[in-house]
């Protein structure tokens, strides 16, 4: 029987329906059990058998997968099959621990070493925790945690997705994502956008959805309806079909129905994303994050290494625009040579452009490398600084960039103070780019990493949209383009609102662009302005989205 839909935050547009398959939760570790001397061989065998079972399960899944998923599964399987891990677990059993605790200790030992190695190596710690949960579940006779494998397409429901899950998830089997936790910038949300899956995050009531329950997920409205009627499913399917057809049919530069240009660009943050990003139908890179060059090393990369990395990107985008964001160190991206380790609150500390005051050489080396790479390629290279707070910072950055021969210089608007003084920023810069994720974090005093504050971080929050409006109007008054390069730009409905607020370019994951392009083509600039007015007038994010969705008539 159909009841009221469950509400969450919609991320990744579109709708899908299908049966629920839940992610099994990680097993709870039982109280330690005394292992008698006579039980040692059996306990050792149980620990080894668990690791073998996990390795075999992952090996089977790797054989059935391809591409990046196969690589990840293979690497996970090799970790589970590692002889040193089994030896360590056995040593813990011999010290009198039961198999679940011995496995836990063995994994903890390797996790501590990887954590100490830092960078990419520390990022493998969640993988070890995932493997540990699988092995412990096996010894306890519980289902293996992680992604389900029901043998038919399903709507994935769980607490939240782990980073490792995102690579393992099979887009041919998963119809939609629903998570109890997470927010608009969580792994789940980012994955949903890349795969083009409807998703609803921060939906605590999803805990009530049992395996096999049919659900209708609406990633635009942010709702999950259990036991939908056949008519509701058919309506949604027809709407989805129209949406997909429109997205597939659209191509070329972004335009509203009346021809107002809205530049559509891709975000790029790692070399392995380059090929797909360059293939995408886009007008360039709206946000080229350069941190990948600096992470996981004791000292900054030299000019030559940087130049080569930039050259590859610029060549792939010859004839198109590439907006390079200079190093955004600090907060969630600490670097030993750029950031202080002793800040009590790194998100409010010396980060982004602020590090350039302490380490001017880092920025100069980077600007010189960007300029030199730009000269040898055919891309239209722009540079912008992250975390600008006051016009003087933007002016100093612009002067330095121009001194290196980079003609087009911008400032990111991520700090509310910068949005409120966008006119003065626009006087000293050639363009502005709004990072909605950080701007929401600072405007709402809500940590981006905290799933419990997801509602405040919703890009539909009218106060956030008001800051976007002020920035866009200030840019227009000075004849400066104003882009948006946060998660907000990936939402087709919100893209209409941003356009109505005066934003001139949108930059998102490559997979998001077709839907955004198709949505823009259905509305005139004046209609976008009307939708923007509805969103700004709403009391909260849910009301803003609902008002705009109703006015747009479900065609987006």
């Amino acid at each position, binding site marked *: 029987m159909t009841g009221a839909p469950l509400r969450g935050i919609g991320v990744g547009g579109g709708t899908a329906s299908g049966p629920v398959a839940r992610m099994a939760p990680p097993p709870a570790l039982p109280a330690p059990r005394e292992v008698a001397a006579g039980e040692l061989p059996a306990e050792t065998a149980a620990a080894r058998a668990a690791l073998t079972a996990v390795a075999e399960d992952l090996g089977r899944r790797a054989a059935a997968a391809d591409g990046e998923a196969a690589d990840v599964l293979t690497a996970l399987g090799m970790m589970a099959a590692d002889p*040193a891990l089994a030896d360590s677990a056995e040593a813990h059993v011999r010290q009198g621990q039961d198999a679940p605790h011995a496995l836990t200790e063995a994994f903890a030992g*390797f996790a501590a070493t*990887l954590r100490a190695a830092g960078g990419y*190596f520390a990022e493998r710690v969640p993988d070890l925790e995932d493997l540990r949960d699988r092995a412990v579940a096996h010894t306890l006779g519980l289902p293996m945690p992680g992604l389900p494998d029901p043998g038919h397409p399903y709507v994935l429901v769980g607490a939240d997705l782990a980073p490792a899950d995102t690579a393992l998830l099979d887009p041919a089997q998963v119809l939609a994502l629903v998570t109890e936790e997470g927010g608009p910038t969580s792994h789940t949300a980012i994955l949903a956008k890349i795969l083009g899956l409807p998703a609803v995050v921060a939906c605590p009531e999803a805990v009530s959805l049992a395996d096999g329950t049919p659900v209708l997920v609406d990633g635009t409205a942010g709702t999950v309806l259990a036991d939908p009627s056949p008519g509701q499913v058919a309506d949604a399917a027809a709407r989805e079909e129209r949406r997909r057809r429109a997205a597939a049919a659209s191509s070329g530069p972004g335009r509203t129905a009346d021809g107002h240009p809205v530049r559509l660009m891709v975000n790029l943050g790692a070399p392995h994303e380059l090929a797909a990003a360059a293939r995408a139908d886009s007008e360039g890179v709206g946000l080229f994050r350069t941190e990948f060059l600096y992470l*996981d*090393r004791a000292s900054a990369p030299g000019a030559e290494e940087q130049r080569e990395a930039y050259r590859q990107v610029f060549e792939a985008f010859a004839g198109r625009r590439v907006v390079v964001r200079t190093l955004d160190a600090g907060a969630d991206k600490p670097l030993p040579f750029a950031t202080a380790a002793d800040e009590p609150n790194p998100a409010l500390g010396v980060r982004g452009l602020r590090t350039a005051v302490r380490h001017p050489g880092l920025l100069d080396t980077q600007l010189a490398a960007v300029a030199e790479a730009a000269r040898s390629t055919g891309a239209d290279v722009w540079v912008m600084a992250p975390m600008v707070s006051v016009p003087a910072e933007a002016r100093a950055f612009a002067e330095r960039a121009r001194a290196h021969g980079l003609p087009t210089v911008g400032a990111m608007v991520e700090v509310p103070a910068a949005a409120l003084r966008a006119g003065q920023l626009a006087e000293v810069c050639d363009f502005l780019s709004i990072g909605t994720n950080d701007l929401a974090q600072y405007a709402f005093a809500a940590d981006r990493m905290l799933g419990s504050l997801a509602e405040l971080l919703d890009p539909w929050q009218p106060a956030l949209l008001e800051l976007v409006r002020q920035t866009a109007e200030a840019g227009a008054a000075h004849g400066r383009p104003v882009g948006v390069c946060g998660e907000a730009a990936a939402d087709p409905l919100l893209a209409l609102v941003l356009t109505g607020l005066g934003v001139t370019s949108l930059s998102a994951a490559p997979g998001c662009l077709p839907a955004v392009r198709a949505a823009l083509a259905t509305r005139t600039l004046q209609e976008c302005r009307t939708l923007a007015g509805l969103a700004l007038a709403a009391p909260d994010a849910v009301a803003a989205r609902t008002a705009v969705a109703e006015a747009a008539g479900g065609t987006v």
Partner: protein
Amino acid sequence: MPERNVVIGSSSGLHARPASLFVQAAGRQPVAVTVGRPGERAVDARSMLSVLALGAKHGETLVLAAEGEGADAALDELAALVAADHDATESA
């Protein structure tokens, strides 16, 4: 004992795909191979976690060592894997 000193070519270090390729290749060799930093304790090259736990980064030098029939050929193959830039071929 035959040894090879080799500089890590992949930009992500001996991690992810480069580490998988290395450990898989080590497992195929007829002899046991160890890997470590010069002057430090070496680990079993067939142990994925031990290799990852080295935290060996781009540009660092590693020492590969093995003994017995086929040791030299095994070391040559593994040294070539460590020196190659697997991240670059992936992104090209």
